[in-house]
């Protein structure tokens, strides 16, 4: 048994150093590692001349390292690993969709994003004739049969101004027996567009992977490029990236807490948090001119400096806003009627969360101490540790509570960074990626772990660029949280996860 190749988060290395294993050894090693507490950060296909290579990147919280393995599938199918490792289910469906490989024995093999076959890689074994492109959302859904069982279909067009997604509930009266979520309506092909790089459009694409995670995805993209090019980012830029990332986290968490209040019709917090989210977005705009942090993070560093007077004014406004958040959210969490709604609603046990590979606040609310800032520290987080916020109940209350604590702790972190900003340059000169390299970067965005993986070809262009948004891991968590719950609690559970549609659909 050969040891898998080990890298650190954001470390570039020679791709040829990762041994290509026969499928059985690859599968055994992968399943063994998943069973032993490692986690699939990414699992994807790479089109090669000889067939499709399957690449697995496993993350281990225990030692903070990433483990790589790969195997070649020459035929048009491979034995599915999902029956033994549920967290791989979407990854395998994605491989099937993007590379035309059939995962044999996959319990629920169907399209992920309804990508037209003309838009994807072709395995050499595939017949040349191509079927008509699939119509998004038109597929089989899991059905519960029986007397008094009814089906409720929601979306893809919703009553609110939100992204499109289709939800199919199997209900017995008010109780949800099963929820199936069908996405793909937002598929833009942005991952493929990124893979055509690196070029000037890259950072812009990265910023729009999921608009509410602009800084997170941009940071991950830039770290990939910097690692591949061997660029060192100045300390001041690292600190400012951390500030922007935490401001993004605060703004989104505050918005989510307000939305949770709105969903249980608790007015005061709903209104206040809606305004306060804007305060934090405005602080980001103070830093770079964009409320979502667009144009701030660029390969090599950051584009905008924070002079001392600006830093002081941002800090004083941050303190005011955080104080108001504390009041508004305190009102929410202390109201008995709200507690009655939040507690015991949409529970995900730690065992379930672990088996399906939840990440981010949703995982931490189920008692899993997973936080890439702590486990796989990158950038400024290597020098300034943030405590991991964990709660054990796994319900809506837990997800709200984790957000509340993270807002506080991120506030403290931003204060510490802005008070002690290191001097020096803002940007290093970017360098072209070296050929034949590979690199994976994990960044803890506000929604959870963002994973970007890049391989370069012999000319230093990307041969593969893979993005795994936290939503990709977590949508199934929402579906499972709904089991046995009243269907009327779905909007509340949905909001407590607040997952991205476009981050999933890419």
């Amino acid at each position, binding site marked *: 048994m050969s040891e898998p190749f080990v890298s650190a988060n954001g470390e570039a290395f020679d791709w040829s150093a990762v041994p290509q294993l026969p499928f059985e050894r690859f599968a055994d090693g992968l399943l063994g590692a998943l069973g032993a507490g490692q986690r699939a950060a990414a699992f994807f296909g790479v089109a090669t001349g000889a067939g499709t290579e399957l690449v697995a990147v496993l993350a281990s919280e225990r030692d903070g390292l990433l483990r790589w393995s790969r195997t070649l599938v020459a035929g048009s199918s491979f034995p599915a690993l999902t029956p033994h490792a549920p967290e791989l289910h979407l990854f395998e469906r994605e491989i099937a969709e993007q590379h035309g490989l059939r995962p044999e024995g996959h319990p629920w093999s169907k399209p992920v994003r309804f990508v037209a076959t003309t838009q994807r890689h072709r395995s050499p074994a595939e017949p040349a004739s191509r079927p008509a492109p699939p119509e998004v959302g038109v597929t089989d859904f899991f059905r519960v049969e029986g007397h008094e069982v009814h089906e409720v279909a*929601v979306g893809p067009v919703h009553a609110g101004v939100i992204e499109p997604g289709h939800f199919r509930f199997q209900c017995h009266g008010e109780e949800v027996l099963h929820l199936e979520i069908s996405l793909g309506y937002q598929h833009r092909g942005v991952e493929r567009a990124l893979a055509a790089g690196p070029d000037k459009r890259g950072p812009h694409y990265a910023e729009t992977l999921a608009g509410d995670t602009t800084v997170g995805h941009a940071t991950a993209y830039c770290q990939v490029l910097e690692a591949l090019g061997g660029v060192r980012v100045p300390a001041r830029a690292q600190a400012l990236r951390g500030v922007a990332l935490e401001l993004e986290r605060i703004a989104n968490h505050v918005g989510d807490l307000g939305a949770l209040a709105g969903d249980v*019709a608790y007015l005061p917090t709903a209104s*206040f948090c809606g305004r306060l989210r804007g305060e934090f977005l405005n602080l980001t705009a103070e830093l770079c001119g964009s409320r979502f942090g667009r144009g701030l993070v660029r390969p090599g560093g950051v584009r905008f400096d924070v002079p001392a007077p600006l830093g002081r004014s941002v800090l004083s406004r941050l303190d005011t806003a955080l104080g108001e958040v504390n009041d508004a959210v305190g009102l929410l969490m202390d109201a008995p*009627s709200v507690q009655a709604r939040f507690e015991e609603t949409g529970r995900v046990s730690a065992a379930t969360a672990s088996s399906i590979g939840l990440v981010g606040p949703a995982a931490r609310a189920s008692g899993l101490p997973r936080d890439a800032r702590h486990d796989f520290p990158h950038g400024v987080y290597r020098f300034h540790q943030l405590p991991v916020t964990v709660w054990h109940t796994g319900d809506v209350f837990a997800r709200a509570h984790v957000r509340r604590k993270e807002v506080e702790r991120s506030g403290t972190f931003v204060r510490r960074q802005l008070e002690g900003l290191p001097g020096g340059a803002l940007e290093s000169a970017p360098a072209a990626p070296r050929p034949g390299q590979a690199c994976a970067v994990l960044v803890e965005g506000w929604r959870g772990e963002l994973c970007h993986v890049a391989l370069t070809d012999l000319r230093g262009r990307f041969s593969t660029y893979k993005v795994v948004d936290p939503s990709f891991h977590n949508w199934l968590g929402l579906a499972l949280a709904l089991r046995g719950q*009243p269907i009327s609690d779905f909007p509340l559970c949905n909001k407590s996860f607040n997952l991205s549609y476009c981050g999933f659909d890419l």
Partner: protein
Amino acid sequence: MHYLVHVLLVLALPPLLLGIANRVKALFAGRRGPPVLQLYFDLAKLARKSTVQSRTTSFVFRAGPVVALATTACAAMLVPLGAHKAPLSFGGDLVFFAYLFALGRFFTVAAALDTGSAFEGMGGAREVTFGALAEPALFFGLLVLTRLGGAVRFAVVLGPGLADHWVEAAPSLVLVAVSLFVVLLSETCRVPFDDPNTHLELTMIHEVMVLDHGGPALGMILYGAAMKLFVLGAVVVGVALPASSGNAWLDWLLFLGGMLGCTVLVGVVESIMARLKLVAVPKLLVTACLLSAVGLVLLVR
């Protein structure tokens, strides 16, 4: 003359109540809120719109809003406003009153089922379940009043005698007033039973049943809902504030003050508490039922 005032108030005032409740909520939330007259504007807008109807619907669907509004307007003629007599009054009008609402509910639910939508079916099931529990609460309250007044008529139970009963049977009447207020919140789909502002179909009770209605039909539904709040509010005010000043015009003012207080209370409740879990709604309705029942026990012991 006063009957005319009664009819005018019933027809003109209900949308204002919702405007006031919304203003109270806005104040609590630190917002400015929509204009107090917003619902009038909305109704005027809806009246001018055309409607689109699903091909699967029949006359039942079109009858829903009409019957709901008609029954509510009819019920409004039975309730004395403050110290003034109602235009219609006869033995047993209390029971008639309760079942006018049941008739309206039946047609609203039938119209919802007529669309064949899963959402509206769910809403109908919820409405009927909660309606079945609100009804005994209402009847237990009316039973206490009937026991005190000695006749099954609004004119008697909410008549001049009630003020004296407040002296001898205050605990029972307090319980009844609270219980009727809970019934009011439930019947008019306010927090903590339903959220009139939500856009989330899966959590709605009443709103989800009327998703397919638009234009004038939707206007009728909104107007009917406002009138229902007015009518049930008048009953609660009648129980809680039976005072009469002796001057007829002053009595109208007194009644309007009571209605204002009741509306503000609805707004306050909506501002300071979250919605109940749907499974907890029956518990609150049973509690309302028990409050009135305890009121009854206190009377007959």
